[in-house]
């Protein structure tokens, strides 16, 4: 359980005034645009930055308290940190980097097995190499390993994928998922990328201009409405689903969403009954008053209109209920012509579905 309250004014005029509490989830995302204060908060938690005012407690231990002038130095907080740039020590081999923190961790506090981490991150073949000869993806895997081998009580990841290209990101994400699932270390995941958060986080703290806008379970927060999802780049919905039939014929997988069925292209390694998390962009959802005929769109689900919000002069966001909240972005003219109002019975036409997380 992490309890954080931070107030600080920077010389630039930027001000952080944020308080939140996490603990229920394995991964809590600090989410917001750049300049929202995410990294400052992450640094304060790890002891790399002392705010003017505030209090930070982890599992009942006070790490920082401005009132009693307590500020535990970073090396005594037992909080792991993965930096955006991997920050491997250039004069040590990969093995030397991995062992750096582990040998500074008291033997009776070591809970993470070195062999398990090396296997999990697939860094065994790199052990004798120097950081300068590693690729970007290899460097970040070693940086993850080095941090988790200190058996931290909490692992802070500060935009660990931001300096990697899309291909590398896709390569590294599964490793973070495996760390989350197999090592049972709570994580604070700092990011401005909604795909990463949907895929990794159980809880989200949404930050903007140094303040907490919302905090809570990922699905709830990311569906909480136009104001919030407008900050997240591409507006959309996050839906928890279950794999109904991994092989539903024609190379498709059937997902069940509270009774309704969605078809997606075959999911690799899908098992019947497994939970997945979907993200459906609002602009990929269309609305029909009657069940359409002769249509190429496979996923047509009965829905009920819950809310209609104006998104811009021309567009409106419609919140549909398909057993889970689903946002659709349509023109205001269509909303008027279809007489969409809360309670209206419609059909949601879903053009495409992104699978963000196999949990």
């Amino acid at each position, binding site marked *: 359980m992490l309890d954080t309250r931070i107030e600080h004014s920077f010389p630039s005029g930027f001000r952080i005034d944020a308080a939140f509490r996490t603990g229920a989830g394995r991964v809590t995302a600090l989410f917001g645009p750049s300049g929202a204060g995410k990294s400052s908060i992450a640094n304060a938690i*790890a*002891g*790399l930055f002392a705010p003017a005012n505030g209090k930070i407690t982890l599992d009942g231990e006070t790490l920082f308290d401005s009132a009693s002038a307590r500020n535990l*130095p*970073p*090396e005594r907080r*037992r*909080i*792991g*940190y993965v*930096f955006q*740039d991997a*920050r491997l*020590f*250039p*004069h040590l081999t990969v093995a030397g980097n991995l062992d*750096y*923190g582990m040998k*500074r*961790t008291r033997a009776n506090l070591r809970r993470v097995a070195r062999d398990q981490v090396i296997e999990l991150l697939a860094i065994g073949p790199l052990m004798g190499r*120097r950081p*300068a*000869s590693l690729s970007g993806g290899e460097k970040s895997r070693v940086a993850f390993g*080095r*941090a988790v081998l*200190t058996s931290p009580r909490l692992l802070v990841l500060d935009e660990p994928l931001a300096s990697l290209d899309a291909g590398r990101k896709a390569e590294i994400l599964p490793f973070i998922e495996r760390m989350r699932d197999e090592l049972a270390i709570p994580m604070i995941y700092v990011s401005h990328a909604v795909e990463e958060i949907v895929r990794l986080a159980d809880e989200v703290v949404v930050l903007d201009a140094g303040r907490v806008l919302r905090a809570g379970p990922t699905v709830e927060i990311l569906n909480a409405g136009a104001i919030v999802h407008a900050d997240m780049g591409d507006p959309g919905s996050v839906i928890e689903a279950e794999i109904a039939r991994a092989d539903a014929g024609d190379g498709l997988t059937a997902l069940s969403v509270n009774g309704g069925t969605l078809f997606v292209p075959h999911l690799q390694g899908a098992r019947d009954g497994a939970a997945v998390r979907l993200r459906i962009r609002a602009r990929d959802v269309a609305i029909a008053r009657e069940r359409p005929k002769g249509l190429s769109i496979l996923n047509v689900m009965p829905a009920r209109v819950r809310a209609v919000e104006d998104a811009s002069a021309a567009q409106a966001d419609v919140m549909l209920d398909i057993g889970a909240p689903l946002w659709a972005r349509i023109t205001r003219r269509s909303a008027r012509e279809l007489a969409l109002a809360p309670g209206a019975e419609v059909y949601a036409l879903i053009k495409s579905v992104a699978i963000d997380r196999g949990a």
Partner: protein
Amino acid sequence: MDFLALTPLEIEALNLSLRVAAWCVAISLPFGIACAWALARLDFPGKSILDGIVHLPLVLPPVVVGYALLILFARDGALGRVLASLGVEIAFTWKGAVVASAVMAFPLMVRAIRLSIEAVDPGLEVAARTLGAGRMGVLFSITLPLAWPGILTGMVLAFARSLGEFGATITFVSNIPGETRTLPLALFGLTQAPGSEAAALRLVIISTILAFSALIASEILAARIRKRLAH
């Protein structure tokens, strides 16, 4: 090949110079590293004054430094009395020559080490803190190993500066054969004696070879270290 054989005077001066230079590097290195680290990484009141004091021997006439040392370390001087009570006497001994050259070489050493410490990414030091290393642990496991090429450069510069030290040494510990007569002082003596041009030239050549070898050796070592850090 008789001209390759060193004379007893040359051997004496050479041995003394090497001994003084080696001790000069050895005793100034810990202080040099501490000073360089403080100047590179800490912010404290009086930092510019410390910086000034460290660099003072670079701009002061060496005779001023030598005379100041003489006053401080004379038997009734402030530091001389403390050392005398410990049974140590340095004025007019080879140990005094070590102190004189250490003071004169200190700015060069600190400057080289400071620059190399400043070149170490502070982000690596922060990362080491999050991995459980305290400030001292970070210094010895991250900062100094990465600054090693610059530390080596500083050591060689101090060594070479000590080999060449003249003004402060002759003022502080005089020119005593076998005790404080290092290469430059022996050379000075020869230039004062008529008919010693050939002997003086030999000392010039020996001094040049010595200083040049030190520089070359440090370049080779530093290149090797840099290569190791890069791969």
